[in-house]
């Protein structure tokens, strides 16, 4: 449950004209893409992709949604996304309006086959472009990445970032004002990390994410999942 002071902040933020303008721009971006293309929404369960999913589904809920979770890493024998979290992410996606949602990964050691599964889904639904919930504000690297035309080439892929100009407060204000359920993980970790601006959904128990508050914080915050194995599911 989000603390009242944070909720109030986001509710006040949603009253700003700048917020309304940025949200309108994001919705227009999606509208423009839908006029010429048939996209697939790449959904991770995080706040940004949830907002993207909700915006797209409001315009056309027949657009396929692709979710690939990292599940269990058979190499390091470590859980990367607990089953309970995966189930909740999929459930939240459906609640946000996704009618055609593909959940790939978890049970088999195919978490590395992200693109293989994605391209299969795209081929099945004749999708021409991938919609990603990346924002320029997240990092300088991402600022550079989202610059340029709305639909861009990323190697052989065609990608678009409709939310590229949104602020982190815009995202939370959108979720709060539209009464969209999000992962309870955010509330739990925001209390520890000192704010909703600092929490990010990444793969859990990742040694590679130690510097971003990965492995050690997860070990303390969610010890019940630390030694989870596929045989438990």
């Amino acid at each position: 449950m989000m603390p009242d002071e944070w909720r109030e902040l986001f509710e006040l933020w949603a009253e700003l004209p700048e917020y309304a303008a940025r949200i309108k721009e994001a919705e227009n971006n999606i509208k423009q893409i839908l006029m010429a293309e048939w996209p697939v929404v790449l959904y991770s369960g995080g706040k940004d992709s949830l907002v993207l999913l909700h915006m797209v589904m409001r315009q056309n809920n027949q657009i396929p949604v692709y979710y690939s979770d990292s599940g269990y890493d058979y190499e390091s024998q470590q859980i990367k996304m607990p089953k309970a979290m995966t189930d909740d992410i999929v459930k939240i996606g459906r609640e946000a309006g996704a009618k055609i949602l593909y959940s790939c990964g978890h049970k088999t050691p195919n978490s590395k086959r992200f693109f293989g599964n994605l391209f299969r889904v795209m081929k099945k639904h004749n999708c021409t472009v991938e919609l990603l919930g990346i924002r320029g504000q997240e990092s300088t690297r991402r600022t550079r990445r989202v610059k340029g035309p709305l639909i861009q080439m990323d190697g052989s892929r065609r990608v678009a970032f409709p939310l590229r100009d949104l602020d982190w407060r815009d995202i939370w204000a959108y979720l709060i004002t539209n009464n969209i359920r999000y992962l309870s993980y955010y509330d739990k970790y925001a209390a520890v990390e000192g704010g909703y601006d600092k929490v990010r959904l990444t793969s859990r128990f990742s040694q590679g994410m130690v510097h971003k508050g990965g492995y050690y914080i997860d070990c303390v915050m969610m010890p019940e999942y630390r030694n989870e194995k596929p045989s438990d599911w």
Partner: protein
Amino acid sequence: MQSIYRKLKGYNPPSNFQPFKVEIKLGSPLLLANPYIHGDSVLMALLMRKLLRDEYYNLPAKNPLPVHNILKLPLKQTKGVYHSSVSQFDTDVVKTESVYKRFDEEHLDHVKSKIKRIRLGQGFFKNYMMKFPVIPTRTVTFYYNGNIKECSSILEDLTALGKKTDIGYGIVRKISIEETEEDYSFVKDGKCMRPFPAKDFKDLYGIPSVAQRLAWKAPYWDKKNITMCAAPGSIFYSHF
């Protein structure tokens, strides 16, 4: 390796046990990579350091010694599990703190080496920032059932608890030991105090409300020691 084995096997702890409580007052917050510290692992680490001296720092990490079978602690055992609780803190608050590791360039003139260049962007000397969970507790309490005299002499060497103690976290200010009337090392007020195999202790305590995959013997970081355990903090249902 044989000398290590001999030194550890040669330790014979006294066998008269009684329940007691160890209260450790801390001078700085505790940095952890687990929700708790296992009481027997603290004793085991201190005892091993005492017995092995410098060899303690050169133990195999990839294939750890089965210390639980070699070294006997001055603690009571039931079904192979030591009577020692996990750490009890006086707060539920968890915060995060960033730790910065930088290569010490100031004292390079003291180093006599042929190496001319050190990479700070990658490899062993890489500079990094790491986030850790911090528990701002003032006291850490452990419940044991063992030999008080022997345990207190082992705990005398305890200077700090948790991670990153070298930069001042988890500094121990005072250790007080007092006898308790009952043994709270396994269960206190109906709550589980340490991980132990749920299946083996079903007849003694009943079914735990929360069972998790946890290590139940030292070394607790070794995945080989993981089994389905009663989780610390869970309640037992005796009549299911």
